[in-house]
């Protein structure tokens, strides 16, 4: 037997060698091998950080038995000379569904499904699949494994990834073996997501619902675990509790959801590894501050289609910028010190993985960082760093052999070894024949050019007339085949077979031109050099990132300069509508300092470096506050599957990147209550925000805001207009709505009493179990305690009256009827209870219950002494609320100041924000708007909108941003269309 083998082409018979399972019966004679394999003269990465030159790797029984320079090679070892080759620990993918059966979604009927369709003693929600065990679903897939092995992966964390709680993931190898051998760790990790997957149950129907469900599940599991006397068997909660000792993975698709997952982790003190969307660079500081480990995809965006000028209009700035900047993501995370692993997930074609990896390296990811993210990090995240991810003594022999530096273009992976078993990726038996040869065929001289990639070598024959003739080329050491058709001679193609000399420099053989046998030879004249010029790469900069990542977002430096200019601002000589008792002040200065209104008066003296704005001929008012808005929410404003969704919080699903925020600023709006929809009698908790465009969702929230919740009445909650199948959910009548409230509040009252009683008990071993924490009842109890306020979607007078009676009977103060379209019919009763009304100016007739809505509602309510606001409930109308307020001049003849209060101080009062904002008064937040004219006029525009003293909308700056958007887009589109990188970087004005 030849001692020095080249790397073999392995046949399926080798499979059996790799199957060491002792319980497996053998059909035939046993072929048990304990050979030692020595990989010599290789460049070896012992781990991501340790490169050995001219080193040896010793493998036996699937394990590394030694590694290093000058390692003694046992005399019986099979030796593979790896001269010129590089060995890396094979890669580990923590996000894969390798070996999993595809999910079989059940079609939805369209009718409501309020209960779980999973049979058994499981939890109430079909999307909580803690009992799922990927280990039991795993089956090796010889069809899929090669595509992973070809890009260097040896192991993966696999799951079907279905549901909000996805159960246990399993860590497996990509070996073609029996399933028993392929599993490295049966239950390796637990997975979670915000997507309910194939669950057919209605709840949750929104992102905030998913979050509510996760939070309640954590609470329920804890309660179940601690209960000494279990009142139910709940296999889902049991499984959930068992999952908690595993590494915890949370799957999200974007940066904002990564922050949402982090928030849950903090609340329940769990350590999530977050599988992100690849856009983390867009919010790098916040991502870094989570301190979490991440799993990052390398599926950089496809080239947007911008060839047609009109179609290009459908591609927005954020897509173009993301295409340009996304390859920066891994490098940016590395520099920020984020610990992360890379995954091939999301690539339509896995073979693009190495190209994208190399791109990421060109875009700033260090090669050791890349290797770490592919080997050590994923192993360590699974707690398996002692077994996989490096090539240390005693670890699994999972490694790849490459033609060189894996991060360099053109390098190929020859073979991928899993537990010491080799899988060929590229044919290593063939020589690199590339170069220029003097070719003589039947005494005719040609030049032969062999080029291409080392794995796909190609031949071109050049004749004495310099005709380039493409040839067929096939290499099968030690033979090769070339055929070509001499120029101008279609009848006599030449077909050649030859033997390659040992030094790869000459080829000799025979062939035929169809007429006779001919002799030929080729002698190397010039060795191959890679002459393809490296295209000079335009590496964009993270400075191009906008906050938010959208048109009209601002770069960090722009944000800084706006902040700087906003430290002290004075608006001079304006007509000031204060919204206070003094109402209108002529020729007045207003001083904004450090985010608050510091002075109002004439000829105020100002600091030297204060920004001075001439308000002559202009109007200055408090910013508009919208009591009823649905902007800036991700994935659903309704969690309408259940009649009560008090557990959900709009604040969990805020989208700080909604362009409506900026557009509303341009309409003079500074704050709004982002409300749950009206799909159910008890909706969700409000997000009360300022329109701090450029900040994160958490930063939008007004810190001093008091908690609110949305309720709703009438046709929407009884599903009158939802379609004929929606006759399942209680209540279906207004009668039912009333009793639903009585029931819920009664339960909340009793819930609170139970907890109070429990709190008073002296705790001992024998004390009773703690009551179950219920996020819905807890929220409702806050209402009873006067700590949370209701704004209720309401139309007809009967139901308005009903709800007031419900509140009376539970002795809490009811806060606001939003819409309250027939409030005018019971205005005396509303006024008597000091309840507010927040209505549309003039919407009506679109459904039965609004046939008697009148645009005089606000006027009558105001005249009855009710604190009345005009709201939008509509992103379009939200940016023209000044016009909506003006309609009450027309409908019922309210004074202009009264009208203006309906969109400023009155909504502030209704939202309990009026001590801080809503009017121009010294000490209040500097939330002000400078208008070109009377703010109630259809002919006026907001020119500057300040939030906390920061000018976030400025009509001139807006014009500059438009120019900037157009030029940045043009620049990226030019890159896309011409493929020629621009010479100079885009310089922002």
């Amino acid at each position, binding site marked *: 037997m030849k001692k020095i083998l080249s790397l073999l082409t392995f046949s399926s018979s080798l499979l059996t060698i790799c199957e060491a399972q002792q319980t497996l019966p053998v059909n035939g004679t046993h072929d048990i091998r304990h050979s030692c394999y020595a990989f010599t003269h290789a460049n070896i990465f012992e781990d991501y950080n340790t490169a050995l030159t001219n080193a040896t790797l010793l493998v036996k029984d699937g394990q590394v038995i030694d590694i290093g320079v000058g390692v003694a090679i046992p005399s019986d070892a099979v030796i593979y000379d790896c001269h010129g080759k590089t060995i890396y620990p094979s890669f580990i993918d923590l996000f894969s569904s390798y070996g999993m059966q595809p999910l079989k979604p059940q079609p939805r009927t369209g009718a409501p499904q309020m209960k779980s369709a999973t049979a058994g003693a499981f939890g109430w929600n079909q999307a909580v699949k803690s009992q799922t065990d990927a280990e039991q679903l795993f089956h090796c897939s010889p069809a899929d494994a090669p595509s992973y092995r070809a890009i260097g992966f040896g192991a993966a964390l696999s799951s079907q990834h279905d549901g909000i709680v996805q159960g246990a993931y399993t860590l497996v190898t990509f070996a073609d073996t029996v399933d028993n051998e392929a599993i490295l760790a049966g239950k390796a990790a637990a997975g979670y997501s*915000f*997507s309910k997957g194939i669950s057919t149950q209605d709840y949750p129907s929104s*992102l905030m619902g998913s979050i509510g469900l996760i939070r309640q599940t954590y609470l329920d599991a804890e309660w179940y675990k601690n209960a000494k006397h279990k009142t139910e068997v709940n296999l889902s909660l049991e499984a959930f509790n068992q999952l908690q000792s595993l590494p915890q993975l949370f799957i*999200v*698709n*974007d940066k*904002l*959801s990564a922050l949402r997952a982090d928030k849950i982790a903090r609340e329940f003190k769990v350590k999530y590894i977050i599988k992100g*969307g690849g856009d983390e660079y867009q919010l790098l500081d916040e991502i870094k501050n989570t301190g979490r480990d991440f799993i990052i995809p390398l599926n950089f965006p496809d080239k947007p289609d911008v060839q047609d000028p*009109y*179609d290009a*209009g*459908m591609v*927005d*700035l*954020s897509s173009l910028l993301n295409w340009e900047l996304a390859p920066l993501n891994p490098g940016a995370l590395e520099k920020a010190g984020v610990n992360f692993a890379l995954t091939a997930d999301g690539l339509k074609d896995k073979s693009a993985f190495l190209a994208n990896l190399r791109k990421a390296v060109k875009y700033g990811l260090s090669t050791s960082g890349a290797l770490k993210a592919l080997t050590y990090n994923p192993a360590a995240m699974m707690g398996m760093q002692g077994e996989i991810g490096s090539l240390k003594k005693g670890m699994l022999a999972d490694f790849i052999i490459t033609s060189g530096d894996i991060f360099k273009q053109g390098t190929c992976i020859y073979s991928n070894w899993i537990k010491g078993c080799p899988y060929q990726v590229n044919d290593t038996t063939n020589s690199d024949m590339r170069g220029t040869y003097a070719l003589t065929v039947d005494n005719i001289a040609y030049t032969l050019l062999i080029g291409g990639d080392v794995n796909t070598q190609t031949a071109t024959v050049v004749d004495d007339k310099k005709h380039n003739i493409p040839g067929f080329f096939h290499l099968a050491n030690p033979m090769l085949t070339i055929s070509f058709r001499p120029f101008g001679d279609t009848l006599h193609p030449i077909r050649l077979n030859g033997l390659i000399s040992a030094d790869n420099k000459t080829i000799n053989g025979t062939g035929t031109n169809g007429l006779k046998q001919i002799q030929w030879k080729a002698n190397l004249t010039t060795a191959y050099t890679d002459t393809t010029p490296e295209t000079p790469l335009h590496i964009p900069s993270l400075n191009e990132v906008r906050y938010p990542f*959208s*048109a009209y977002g601002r770069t960090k430096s722009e944000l800084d300069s706006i902040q700087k200019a906003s430290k002290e601002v004075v608006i001079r000589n304006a007509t000031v509508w204060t919204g206070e008792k003094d109402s209108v002040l002529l020729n007045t200065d207003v001083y904004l300092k450090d985010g608050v209104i510091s002075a109002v008066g004439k000829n105020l003296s100002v600091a030297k470096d204060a920004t001075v704005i001439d308000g002559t001929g202009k109007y200055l008012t408090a910013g508009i506050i919208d009591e009823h808005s649905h902007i800036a929410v*991700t*994935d659903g404003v309704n969690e309408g599957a259940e009649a009560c969704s008090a557990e959900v919080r709009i604040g969990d699903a805020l989208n700080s990147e*909604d*362009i409506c925020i*900026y*557009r509303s600023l341009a309409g003079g709006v500074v704050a709004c209550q982002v409300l749950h929809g009206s799909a159910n009698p008890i909706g969700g908790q409000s997000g009360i925000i300022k329109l701090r465009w450029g900040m994160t969702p958490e930063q939008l929230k007004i810190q001093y805001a008091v908690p609110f919740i949305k309720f709703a009445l009438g*046709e929407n909650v009884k599903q*009158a207009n939802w379609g004929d199948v929606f006759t399942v959910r209680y209540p279906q009548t207004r009668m039912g709505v009333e009793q639903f409230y009585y029931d819920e509040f009664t339960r909340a009252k009793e819930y609170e009493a139970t907890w109070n009683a429990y709190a008073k008990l002296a705790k001992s071993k024998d004390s009773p179990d703690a009551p179950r924490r219920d996020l819905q009842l807890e929220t409702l109890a806050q209402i009873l305690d006067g700590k949370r306020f209701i704004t209720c979607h309401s139309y007809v007078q009967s139901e308005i009256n009903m709800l007031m009676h419900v509140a009376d009977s539970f002795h809490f103060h009811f806060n606001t009827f939003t819409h309250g379209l027939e409030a*005018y*019919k019971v*205005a*005396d009763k509303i006024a008597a209870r000091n309840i507010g009304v927040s209505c549309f100016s*003039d*919407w*009506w*007739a*679109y*459904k*039965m219950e*609004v*046939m*008697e809505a*009148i645009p*005089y509602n606000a006027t*009558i309510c105001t*005249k*009855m002494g009710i604190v009345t606001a005009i709201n939008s409930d509509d992103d*379009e109308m939200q940016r023209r609320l000044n016009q909506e307020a*003006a*309609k009450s*001049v*027309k*409908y*019922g*003849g309210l004074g*202009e100041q009264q009208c203006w209060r309906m969109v400023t101080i009155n909504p502030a009062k209704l939202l309990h924000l009026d001590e801080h904002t809503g009017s121009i008064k010294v000490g209040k937040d500097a939330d002000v708007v400078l208008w070109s004219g009377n703010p109630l*006029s*259809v*002919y*006026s525009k907001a020119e500057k909108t300040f939030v906390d003293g920061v000018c976030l909308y400025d009509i001139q700056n*807006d014009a500059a941003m438009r120019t900037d*958007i157009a030029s940045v887009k043009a620049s990226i589109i030019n890159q896309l269309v011409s493929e020629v990188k621009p010479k100079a970087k885009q310089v922002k004005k």
Partner: protein
Amino acid sequence: MKKHLIIATSILATLAAIAQQPIPASPKKKSILLYGGTVHTATGKVIENGEIGIRDGKIILVSDQDTSHTSLTTTYSNSQTTQVSTTNSGLTKTEKSEHKKIYSSKEYDTVIDCTGKQIYPGFIDPDCSLGLVESGAVRATTDVADIGALNPELRTLTTYNTDSKITPVVRINGILTAQIAPQGGLISGTSSIMSLDGWNWEDACYKADDGVHMNWPVLYSRVQLNPDQIGGFAPNKNYDKQIQLLQKFFSDAQAYAKQKTHAETNVKFEAMKGVFDGSKPLYIYASFAKEILASVTFAKNFSIPKIVLVGGLDSWMVTDFLKQNNIPVILTRVHSQPAMTDDDIDQPYKTPAILQNAGILFCLENDGDQEENASRNLPFMAGTAITFGLTPEQGLDAITSNTAKILGINNSLGSIEVGKDATLFVSDGDALDMRTNIISLAFIKGKKIQLTSVQTALYHEYMQKYGLK
């Protein structure tokens, strides 16, 4: 006799208030003189202190009181004239009319002092569903779209409900005429133009079966790309199929129109005849630039004489094309969000000015959500368009004279000019600004209409209940 009539009228008015629905105006012939107001003629001219004479439903006089009829002031002071006085709700509180010869060459039954007021031609709302939809959510009350893709034969005329509670609410804001258009399918049907007053649709009809409405297939539709994203646009996979359907239909309909006799009568093709002979415009609904280019080219290839673009979201991008082909535009809701995140934030507000500056004939409409009841806000969209670049006169034209031109009714409607129908109204102030659009008096074809509605009735009822003023 006169006295009796007045009393009778006031009783009727009271009854109307109780019934919450105004009674259609009396068909009696009358002559009326409005004087002293600022007349916005919608011909580019504003007449301060103007006067308007009305007889037999037509405008017989439009002039500047100061310059052309200097003797009038004295004459008026000797006659018992009516002072328009209004409540905040825009209702006419008192109005006495007396027969008196007041002008040497003309006689007017009624003379109305409009000093300090603004007079406008009645606004026209094109492409709307007034009278077809009462309450969008109540299926029993909607008759705006039928099944099937190709329905040119459907007529809105005979479905138009003169007793809709919405119409009186809309006209209180100055909208006195509307084109009632069908929706749905690729060819929705045939519209008619209605005066917003009348006992029945025959009464109310201003122009029957005025045009055929075609919805050009969309190239893109809004989609949710993934649960964590707001959404984007995806190509319409059925676009080519839908175009083929239209191509075949138009080819066959055109061939049918050329036949002198038909072996079998096809009501769909019958309804298309007017489109080919130019008696009915083809109203093409298209939004995105490529849809506009494709749809107009499609119609041109069938040699359709009158083409009107409706919607025209991207019309501002293709102004050269529209100008070259002489295509007028009924422009989609000004009070809209820009279609794309990157768009100029005021794009819908300034599109009218772009079209105006490009020399394209356009008017405004209020298509979309709740279009029937929100029609009343049409004037304020013109107001917004003025803020974003139109002159006040151009803004007015966009909801009056331009609309009449595009709908082919400008010989008799759309401006205050001698010979045209006296469809006009008097407002306390600028009718394009919501604060001052307070209308005290309105005429449709010379007949004074009642400016009451369900809403004003409820308002007064409850003001009374609470003792409020």
